[in-house]
């Protein structure tokens, strides 16, 4: 079942870390902080912002991926994005907590 | 577009002539297609003659006529497409071409040394700022492990005192 909710993600240029584009136009390493958009128009705005970040040498290779968004938070629908958000399943010591709400710092 | 030779931007006396156009009153650069069709009349051109090879055209086709060309242009449609490196070495090393060997297309600073080693001596570049990096690009790697079209002494030459 295709989701119409999407988040824009990229890798941070300097350390390759997985980051998500927030509503404020920043890049956060927390999935929960990613701006969830619906529809092509809103996505186009985010992707344009992402391209500016590429030009500013903040991130590389931005793209959008589908999520479900509800009372239990935001979850990627694809295994690949689940692993990108949570860390390698075989190295729990490198896990990132995806269940936490967005913390602005 | 700037023409770079020996680390400096130079005037380009050549005119790239479309297949249907009349030859200019000056050095003329034609396609291989035109050379195939009109070699006899082109030979009579009163000025310099050059030919552009696409990177999937074979060098053997012009090998017998090289003394007529002052310029051969080879193409890098994308810098990742490295076919012209082979064409360049064949022109220089197999067929003894001594005229200007020009790199055109997606010509970037980080491939300059490879191009020079394969025998290119002229570069059509989009970014004239490339000349500022010229010296550095040419000298940042001084060791050559393998023979190519340039006269650089290889590591093997230097180790054995040969070359």
């Amino acid at each position, binding site marked *: 079942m295709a989701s119409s909710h999407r988040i824009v993600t990229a890798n941070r240029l300097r350390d390759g870390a997985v980051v998500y584009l927030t509503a404020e136009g920043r890049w956060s390493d927390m999935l929960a902080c990613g701006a969830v958009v619906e529809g092509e128009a809103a996505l186009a705005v985010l992707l344009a912002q992402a391209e500016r970040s590429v030009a500013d040498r903040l991130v590389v*290779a931005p793209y959008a991926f589908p999520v479900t968004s509800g009372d239990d938070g935001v979850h990627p629908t694809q*295994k690949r994005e689940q692993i990108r958000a949570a860390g390698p399943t*075989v190295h729990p010591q490198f896990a990132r907590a995806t269940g936490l709400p967005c913390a602005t710092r | 577009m700037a023409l770079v030779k020996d680390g400096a931007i130079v005037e380009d006396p050549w005119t790239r002539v479309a297949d249907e156009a009349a030859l200019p009153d000056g050095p003329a650069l034609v396609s291989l297609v035109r050379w195939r069709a009109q070699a006899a009349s082109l030979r009579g051109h009163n000025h310099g003659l050059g030919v552009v090879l696409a990177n*999937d055209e074979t060098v053997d086709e012009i090998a017998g006529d090289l003394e007529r060309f002052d310029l051969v242009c080879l193409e890098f449609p994308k810098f990742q497409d490295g*076919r012209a490196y082979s064409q360049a070495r064949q022109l220089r090393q197999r067929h003894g071409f001594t005229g200007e060997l020009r790199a055109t297309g997606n010509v970037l600073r980080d*491939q300059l040394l490879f191009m020079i080693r*394969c025998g290119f001596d002229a570069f059509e570049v989009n970014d004239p700022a490339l000349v500022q990096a010229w010296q550095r690009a040419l000298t940042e790697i001084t*060791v050559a492990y393998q*023979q190519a079209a340039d006269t650089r002494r290889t*590591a093997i030459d230097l180790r054995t005192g040969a070359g």
Partner: protein
Amino acid sequence: MYRYDAFDHTLVAERVAQFRDQVNRRVAGALTEDEFKPLRLMNGLYLQLHAYMLRVAIPYGVLSATQMRRLAHIARTYDKGYGHFTTRQNIQYNWPDLEDVPDILEELAEVEMHAIQTSGNCIRNVTADPFAGVAADEFDDPRVYAEIIRQWSTLHPEFSFLPRKFKIAITGAPNDRAAVMVHDIGLRMVAGPDGQPGFEVIVGGGQGRTPMIGHVVRGYLPVPQLLTYLEAVLRVYNQLGRRDNLYKARIKILVHETGKEEFTRLVEQEFASMASENPPALPGGELARIRACFQPPAYADLPASSPEHDLALTQNRAFARWVKTAVAQHKQAGYAIVTISLKPIGGIPGDASAEEMDAVADLSERYGFGEIRVTHEQNLVLPDVPRKDLFALWQALETAGLGTANVGLVSDIIACPGLDYCNLANARSIPIAQEISERFADLDRQHDIGELKVKISGCINACGHHHVGHIGILGVDRKGVEYYQVTLGGDGTQSATLGEIVGPSFAGGEIVNAVETVVATYLAARGEGERFLDTYRRIGAAPFKEALYGTR
């Protein structure tokens, strides 16, 4: 082993400075990612799922204790305390920062190491028999030629922007431990009509999307002609290899589409021209210089057998079991080749912590001449262990957690990083390897099963070499869920065979049961002394399909 001279040192130092400048230009915006990507790939730097990944070259799988200690230091200092040994004898670090990479490369250069051309559309690390120079069955030492090819291919100006990556492997023994039949170019050392060593040249093998066994294009190539011939093959590939389709760009496709006869004709024609227009690319003086680096070490004059060792074999069953799997015959009397398993039960195949790397470095000096090898099955080798010291070595390995007696057995699994780490993956491979390993943990059972090579890839790119696994497992994505397809009967040795798909893929929860079923089918059918592969070749896939799916 090879030691850098002034030229080699200069090259790696200049390369580090060049890459440092390229990183600076990238960060400053003078290079776009499109322009930077091939440059960073040609220095081994990928962008993967969670972070950058740096692949450091271990030329033909040989390294010194000093170099291994430096790899440990880099794991500790710049990464998360571990590294991963790969199926091409290299090591990978999964978490470097971009701006640290020039420093990492500088520290590697200090110990004669680099990450040059471990990725990119260029000639990659030349791999070789991990038992090179010490194997009892060896005809000639392939390391000599691997080093020659390494230098010739480094920063080759004509072949740095090929249609696709290019992989060369070389074996000096009839028992092929380098998988030469499934490489872009495989070289098998053979004797010529005059008894002089030369090469059988095999072109167009490969795994991945369209696996193929290579074709012999030249039955005998004399040693002095090696580099010129390689240039001829590479030039034909550079000019004619497909550039329109990423998935059809390897030389195996060119050989397949051109036809072996025509391809051979093109190569021989180019070779003949090159040979006549150039002085020999490999002068005798340089060959002698490199060969001199690979002279045997100062072996002690040891008796062929050791009474202490023989006694320990009878007295200590665990030791005897380890010897059976880990020890291979050395050409020098009284010495042994030891393979160290990096496949602890339930562990991540091929991973080693910094502590483990340091331990292996120490052991290589205490029980050898300070040399270590990496195999393409993701294990390590100590090539020169006196037989009388095997017991002490084993005890030390056990203490370090490196004594698993499973080399060549079902839990000695080859697995790519898979979807846990890799951008290209469709499914995870490491957890499957761990589950299989745990299911078959019982060493008695493993030894009873005998030689069984399980290879797992997380996607069709086949970095886990599943096509040549006795049991191959390919992770696929079916509607967003990880499934696993089984192939049987693959073989990467001189009797190279591509595995046969047995049927529909299995869910993650079922694949280990499927492997159990395959093993049970083999055990029920096997004849006297038959390995899994032997039984499979005798009875075919049908009994396995029947057992797995209940149909033919």
